[in-house]
């Protein structure tokens, strides 16, 4: 209730500020505003560590003046005066900025109806319910096997509003809910402590399944005991969804972003229509996916959502665009302006996300089309190889270099998983790997900005200790 009242006030004040800016010597103005209530419970060492409730709302203005000079300012001080002043600050900053060629804001277009973005049951969740879920995820993991410790985890419920308006007629507001349960566990047996294993569930609905997440962690942990070192070799590797979603998706996203193509630094610049991956790889960005964690009916500069085919049977079909990159490359906007871009960009981490930043280009739900083989089938077809469920270390996104530590990986021999691997690295260039994908699994999993299955990739270099 409180949330809706605040929202009404914020929306009203933001529209007033945009009208005030229209009276000034500007080309365009835009305001992005959000209001959220978050309830979170943290788990540490088998116990509930703490619980918190965070209310946050604010607005970020982009003001464009002659010669495409742009300024940005934001505030979370919710008075009409402070919101008006913030709009004016953005204007003042625009004056000392330089021209951004092809700068563009989207025009109004009717957004599609996207199902499953809001669930009243999440909005009404109490902290007692969140604590109950936290207890259930701990118990499910530790009851699975008495060597398992629920090390760290989170249960999060968020309810909020997201709005955007600009002087070109864009004026959209959307209500949304999010829920996350996440658990990291490790195993302890005599002197041996395993590395961490994680499982999680990202959803829009009140359908969190702590039992399943906890049991998965329990199962993963028990598989990690008595690891053995690996000898260096080159051969087939199955990358599980978690490994794909992190390092491999990072490389994909960097190559697919319209802005890296504009500067020519994307490895896939000038490759539209060419084969960039093996024939079995099809990638889409699907912002209208029902219940998709990053689905939305309009992007973070107000352009209506859609599904874009990026790679079709190995052939590069489109990049990810916002209004500016689409204009610069004279192509269609794909609605990928995001103020919640993932990754480890230091500047983002300092400044924060949402109303605190101008939009970047980022996928909504980057989807790799699943194949039809189960993980067990993929394993059974390998004579000698490795299954990498998760790996640690940043990819060098621009060059595609991945040189990662094997954190949850298993040696496969004669179609069977033999033992977990201790130490060791995997090393290669992801752009080569995409061409070496031989089989795609059916085990797609939803991550924050991706829905991806296992990939079997041939001829991958493994570095032993």
């Amino acid at each position, binding site marked *: 209730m409180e949330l809706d009242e605040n929202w009404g006030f914020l929306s009203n004040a933001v529209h007033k500020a945009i009208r005030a800016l229209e009276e000034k010597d500007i080309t365009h103005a835009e305001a992005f505003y959000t209001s959220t209530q978050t309830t979170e*419970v943290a788990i540490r060492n088998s116990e*509930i560590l*703490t*619980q*918190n*409730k*965070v*209310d*946050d709302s604010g607005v970020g203005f982009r003001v464009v003046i002659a010669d495409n000079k*742009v*300024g*940005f*300012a*934001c*505030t*979370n*001080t*919710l008075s009409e005066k402070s919101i008006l002043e*913030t709009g004016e*600050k953005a204007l003042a*900053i625009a004056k*000392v*900025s*330089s021209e*951004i*060629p092809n700068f563009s804001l989207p025009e109004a277009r009717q957004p599609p109806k996207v199902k499953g973005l809001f669930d009243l049951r999440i909005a009404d969740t109490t*902290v007692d319910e969140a*604590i109950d879920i936290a207890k259930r995820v701990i118990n499910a993991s530790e009851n699975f096997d008495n060597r398992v*410790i629920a090390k*760290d985890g989170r249960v999060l419920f968020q309810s909020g509003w997201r709005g955007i308006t600009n002087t070109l007629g864009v004026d959209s507001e959307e209500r949304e809910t999010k829920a996350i349960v996440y658990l990291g566990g*490790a195993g302890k047996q005599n002197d041996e*402590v*395993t*590395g961490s294993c994680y499982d999680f569930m990202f959803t829009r609905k009140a359908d969190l399944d702590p039992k399943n997440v906890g049991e998965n962690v329990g199962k993963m942990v028990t598989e990690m005991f008595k690891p053995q070192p690996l000898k*260096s070799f080159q051969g087939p590797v199955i990358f599980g969804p978690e490994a794909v979603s992190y390092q491999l998706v990072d490389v994909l996203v960097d190559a697919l972003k319209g802005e890296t193509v504009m*500067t020519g*630094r994307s*490895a896939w610049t000038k490759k539209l229509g060419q084969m960039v991956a093996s024939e079995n790889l099809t990638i889409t960005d699907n912002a209208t996916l029902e219940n998709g964690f990053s689905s939305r009916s309009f992007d973070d500069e107000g352009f209506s959502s859609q599904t874009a085919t990026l790679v079709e049977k190995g052939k590069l079909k489109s990049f990810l665009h916002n209004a500016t990159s689409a204009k610069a490359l004279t192509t269609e906007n794909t609605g990928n302006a995001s103020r919640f871009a993932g990754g*480890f960009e*230091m*500047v983002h*981490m*300092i*400044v924060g996300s949402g109303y605190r*930043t101008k939009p970047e280009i980022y996928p909504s739900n980057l989807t790799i089309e699943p194949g039809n083989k189960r993980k067990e089938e993929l394993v059974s077809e390998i004579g000698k190889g490795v299954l990498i469920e998760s790996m*640690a*270390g*940043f990819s*060098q996104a*621009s*060059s595609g*270099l991945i*040189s*990662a*530590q094997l954190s949850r990986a298993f040696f496969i021999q004669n179609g069977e998983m033999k033992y977990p691997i201790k*130490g060791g*690295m995997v*090393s290669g260039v992801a752009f080569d790997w995409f061409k070496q994908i031989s089989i795609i699994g059916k085990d797609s999993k939803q991550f924050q900005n991706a829905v991806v299955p296992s990939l079997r990739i041939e001829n991958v270099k493994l*570095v032993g*200790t």
Partner: protein
Amino acid sequence: MKTCTVKNGIVEEFSDISLSGVGVRAFVDNKSWGFSSTNMLGFESVKQSLENSIKLAKTSSHLKTQELKLEPVRERVADVATFVKKPIGDFSAEDIVDIPLEAHKGAKEAGPQVADMKATYISIEDEKYFLSSEGTRIHQNTTRVLLFINVIAKSNGLLCPASENLGHAGGLELFDRTSPYSLGKSVAESAAKLLKTKAPPSGKFHVIIHPTLCATLLHEAIGHPLEADLAMTGGGFGDRIGELVSSKFITIYDDGHVEGGLGYFPYDDEGVECKRTVLIENGILKSFMHDRTSAALSNVSPTGNAHAWDYSAEPLIRQTNIGIKGGNYSLEEMIEDVEEGLLLEGTFGGQADVNADFTFGFQKAKWIRKGRIAEELRGANVAGNAIEVFKTIDAVGKETILRPGACGKFQFAVQGRVVPAIRCKILVGGTGD
């Protein structure tokens, strides 16, 4: 906070970010914490947050098995501020925009192979009040300035990135010693030079870790496992106080009072003074970094390591300025003793697990053959287990440098690192031969 990003010579973003709010933490029944925050500063909203935090703390109190005997924090009234020689307020918006623009000019000097260049200036002026029911009233004003430079050089489809950061607690005097122009130039030259080099090899090598990379090794490999909340989950350094856990050449400390360090904090966010804590002394584990809760659980005093990124986040155990005490070797002497190995420089960031497994990236390397520097190589990642790798350290450099750092453990933090070069054995994951 002000940020200004120049991409390829264009002021792509210039932002003015002003945020304020209140975070309230309540401790109830000697067991349980609750936290609530709001950006609405009216009396009623703040009171509501306080009530929320108490209610939240009570909700899980009955589930807590352990009573926490928090060591009282001595009542303290303080008003402290970072030493600032050139205040940000004395500079116009045009002056600020010039900082990343100058860096871009410098980068252009490196030639046409510079395909992409981004420079970001950030200044953070943070005014923070800490009040507690124990009587503590602390007012801290901190000013921080940072400059990030990222360059990608390109030739014949090969892309080589390089980056470097400057940052300190203080004002715009940050650029008195290193100008944005010269920094932009050196990063771009470094990236362009890498285009002519080969990929590094893979396997276990005798390596010298340059201070620019040692900062990441220290933070990830040994810093994280020494944070009490991570250590208490078992594995890593767990319950090994008093034991030899590293090479005897190694002494490690954490010190919030390092002047100019990006992790300069007189007090932490529980009102505890951030003093120097010796963590490892001559290889022997002496202490972990604690907040009040972990200190109570371990029967020791808190060490001033509870830090929250902003009002909307609960304090968490974080490093401030972590350091390795300088040793006896010059870099030349460290190189002389290596028959075949690598000198690894510049960081690409990394990660660590609670069992002390770590990985991090280096930007460039040089072969060392028969005690001499040989050809240069590109970057890759290294990996290992901190406890195993730190036992292999056989030399520590004389000179230490202060580096800016950052960490994303659950929430963001800015930190400093005081580091020499070290020599050890480590697994390198290069794609070359």
